[in-house]
């Protein structure tokens, strides 16, 4: 089950933290300083701009996700997670429930913005597409993070993912190529708007990356018991 008692107990706190952080970022950038931008532009403008800067939204997501991940109790591991596929389901269920928490937190902030600002109906389709691609990119990012935390420990995972992001930025700046989620993908979607080919490329790339991570996570769980007691 995606939502269990443990998720229900922790979700409100994580939702609140993520929502407050995002609202603080939007507030510090300025809510509609020129008087010309609507709720969609404010929301995605801030979120994407802050995503490209590694030191704000990405560390918050990295930290909260690594705290969200729970390693199973030995008894649970011994009695229930007896095969690699069950262990994989256990961890991906946590990943998806975290995505749900992020989605709820950001929906709350978007809801708040619609009360503060107007919503331009012309921007709605683009906003919806960006929501989809961003969530897919986020899933790919969290899959990589999950892989790193399973292969190494959580602190090492946080350090390595930061290094990978800077490497990715360097690749994008010098070779116009990106492996991880946002540089080549969301940035290429943005200028072209609802260009279907770009969106499909983005979706395809993220799906492939998620698939590769899924396979590597399965292999990791096949050859490790991920418990140290």
């Amino acid at each position: 089950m995606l939502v269990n008692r443990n998720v229900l107990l922790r979700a409100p706190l994580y939702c609140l933290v993520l929502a407050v952080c995002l609202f603080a970022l939007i507030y510090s950038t300025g809510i509609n300083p020129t008087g010309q931008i609507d709720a969609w532009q404010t929301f995605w403008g801030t979120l994407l701009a802050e995503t490209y800067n590694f030191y704000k939204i990405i560390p918050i997501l990295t930290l909260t996700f690594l705290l969200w991940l729970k390693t199973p109790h030995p008894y649970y591991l011994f009695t229930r997670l007896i095969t690699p596929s069950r262990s994989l389901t256990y961890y991906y269920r946590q990943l998806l429930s975290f995505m749900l928490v992020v989605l709820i937190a950001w929906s709350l902030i978007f809801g708040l913005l619609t009360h503060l600002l107007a919503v331009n109906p012309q921007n709605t389709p683009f906003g919806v597409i960006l929501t989809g691609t961003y969530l897919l990119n986020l899933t790919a990012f969290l899959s990589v993070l999950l892989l790193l935390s399973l292969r190494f420990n959580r602190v090492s995972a946080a350090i390595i993912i930061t290094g990978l992001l800077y490497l990715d930025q360097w690749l994008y700046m010098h070779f116009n190529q990106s492996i991880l989620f946002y540089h080549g993908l969301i940035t290429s979607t943005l200028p072209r708007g609802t260009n279907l080919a770009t969106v499909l490329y983005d979706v395809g790339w993220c799906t492939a990356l998620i698939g590769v991570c899924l396979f590597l996570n399965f292999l990791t769980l096949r050859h490790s018991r991920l418990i140290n007691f």
Partner: protein
Amino acid sequence: MTTTLSLTHISKKYHRKPVLTDVSLQANTGDIIGISGTNGSGKTTLLKTILGFTIPDSGQIIVLNHPLSARQHFATNTGFALKDCGPLPNYSGLANLQLMAQLLKMTDMTHLPELLDLVGLTATNTTKVKHYSLGMYQRLCLAMSLVNDPQLVIWDEPENALDEAGLRQLQALLARLAEMGTTTILTSHNPTLLAHHVTRRVHLEAGRLLELPHSPGGHPWLRFGKCSYY
């Protein structure tokens, strides 16, 4: 008499340091195997390897006719009590047993109060485990390992923190398990327990397993009067 456990040429290294070297062991139904050895000799690693928590570098483990592998991670129908792997602190003893039974998908939980009684705890005690003494905690760990009436029981130093009455209950429990045909593998530093209450003794030294001739009552420490556990 059937073979419950078969370890064949098990080796394990941690950071290039050998912990288990070419360990082979067979256990039959009703056996109580006592493993002795100095601190750091690899006793706990051996138990974790049998259970499936630690993956050996080489060798084969067959528990109840099921080889442990990448597909089958853990030993089936096995109960265990290891250090640092205990009950949930915010629940009572009985609640912990009930949770364990739920994990094992058991529907009949009527035997759980009796199980607590066997280890000297009471089902009516609603004290949370975090307020338990070390001895009570150890007793509960032993009870948790027996919730599903397993065919193989693995205990890591079960006598730890037990008082005299607790030790007597442990001995009675061992006898009862042997009577029921359950195979028990335990590590211990208690010479009396190893001398009188196991059917086979093995000794781990520098990762190697040595079978010791077992003669109940004939342990040298007892003969020389060096045992001060009781």
